[in-house]
């Protein structure tokens, strides 16, 4: 492992692990807020060396789903399992630094723990925040802060990286860099990555598997196949499906995960209040 350390592209210290092992899974997760069903029997699995994109419109329950998967909220029903000892790097969607707390970016990153000193500079370069390292957290712009959060997650040397809307407030060049980074994390580090987005065409480039949810799982599978699924088209419109064609992912290797579209079983049995948007 010392051979790879310090190479900027390698980023992190421990060697890639065999692909395909299940890192985290949530089965039939159901969450209700005040009688309203926000999440209806949604299942999510993330394996090693796999990028899973969770997409869906605003209010589809994407953040709720990952919060349940990470154990931040207790689902009303369903089960969550993590591989023992799995290290999670989490980049939440919204976080407002407390202005009364004097905290530099450097210190905030140091709090991540598990840091290998030589890696810090490489990670900072990778996400492009080296110039802000000595600034106070409360003085960063939204885009800068999101990248600091990503760096912090990476410095934890995670097995599972969970990104909630990572490209929000990031310019186009930053978005491209983000997808390259996600791809590298998977390929070189063997990291499992779960990415949330409502803006689907920008995430799918680096994605192995897509789960499209809107309260329930609409459809799931390989990006290209999902984009042709009728429920996906009805949710995002034919333009979105066409746009997707431009961004089809180009991997010549498989990651040992199912790639066929699995029509969600809930399609047939779904409760009436949620079936409205299907057609």
């Amino acid at each position: 492992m010392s051979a790879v350390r310090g190479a900027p592209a390698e980023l992190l210290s421990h060697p890639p692990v065999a692909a395909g092992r299940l890192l985290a899974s949530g089965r039939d997760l159901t969450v209700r807020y005040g009688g309203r069903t926000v999440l209806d029997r949604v299942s999510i699995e993330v394996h090693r060396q796999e990028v899973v994109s969770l997409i869906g419109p605003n209010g589809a329950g994407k953040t709720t789903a990952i919060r349940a998967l990470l154990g931040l909220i207790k689902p009303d029903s369903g089960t969550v399992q993590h591989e023992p000892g799995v290290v999670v790097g989490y980049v939440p969607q919204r976080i407002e630094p407390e202005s009364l707390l004097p905290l530099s970016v450097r210190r905030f990153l140091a709090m991540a723990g598990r840091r290998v000193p030589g890696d810090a500079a490489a990670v900072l370069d990778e996400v492009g925040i080296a110039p802000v390292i000595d600034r106070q957290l409360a003085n960063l712009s939204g885009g800068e802060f999101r990248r600091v959060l990503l760096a912090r997650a990476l410095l934890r040397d995670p097995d599972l990286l969970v990104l909630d809307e990572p490209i929000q407030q990031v310019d186009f060049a930053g978005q491209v860099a983000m997808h390259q980074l996600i791809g590298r994390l998977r390929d070189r580090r063997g990291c499992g990555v779960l990415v949330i987005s409502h803006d689907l065409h920008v995430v799918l480039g680096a994605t192995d598997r897509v789960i499209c949810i809107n309260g329930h799982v609409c459809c799931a599978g390989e990006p290209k196949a999902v984009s042709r699924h009728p429920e996906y088209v009805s949710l995002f419109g034919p333009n979105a499906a066409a746009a997707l064609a431009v961004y089809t992912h180009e991997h010549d290797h498989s990651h040992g995960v199912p790639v066929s579209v699995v029509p969600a079983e809930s399609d047939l049995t779904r409760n009436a209040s949620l079936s409205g948007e299907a057609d």
Partner: protein
Amino acid sequence: MLDDFFARALLGGIGVALATGPLGCFMVWRRMAYFGDSVAHSALLGVVLGVGLGIEPNAGIVIMCIAMALLLLLLQQQRRLATDTLLGILAHGGLALGLVGISFLHSVRVDLMSYLFGDILAVTGRELVWIYGGGGVVLAATALIWRPLLAVTVHEELARAEGVRVGLVRIAFTLLIALAVAIAMKIIGLILIVALLIIPAATARRLARSPEQMAVLASVIGVVAVAGGLHGSLAWDTPSGPSIVVAALALFALAHGGAALASACVGRFVASVPGKH
């Protein structure tokens, strides 16, 4: 020298200020000023409990403050009442209950004013032991939970996702607030305790570049406020507890006003330099 009431008062005040500095910073960062107020206001009920049960009033105060803090922690889980409403109800309800309760204690002489506003000039040697013993525990425990508490303070969900035992850390912090209130009671009185916790911390914010700096500075500023307030109290024959808070307030105004003035002067200087703008 310890026979001198003023020296004892100074020692007691300094002990309390040292212990409450770091804790006060967390109170400011976690926006828990009113939480602290509610806990402090329940202390009078603790006195009633202590005297009623025939135990040490200090023990009664600690028990009641802990009970109130845990009750608040529990009630904040519900969504029906906004937190500030809840805190208002418990703070003033607790104080009123304490005042009513004390009126039942005919048999014992209770100096109400000393509990409300503190009686630092009457601090005994035994109370100094209590202040430094308890204060030492507060400081040591704060240092012990510093890292996870800071992580939870920066972002609770992030900390939870990263494996910090958030619930445990919150309970520990809450217990420390209760203990600090019980310690500071004699010095500053339950009405003004929170001022001694948050004003030095808010003053230190102006000058600090890291959480640890701010914590140490808050303690130092608290000590200066205690010394200044006590000397002022002696010189002008003013009530000692409020005088300490006034001194803290003056330091706060100095730090914030001074900094604002300095930046205004620099701004004017930059604007007046030829060739700029």
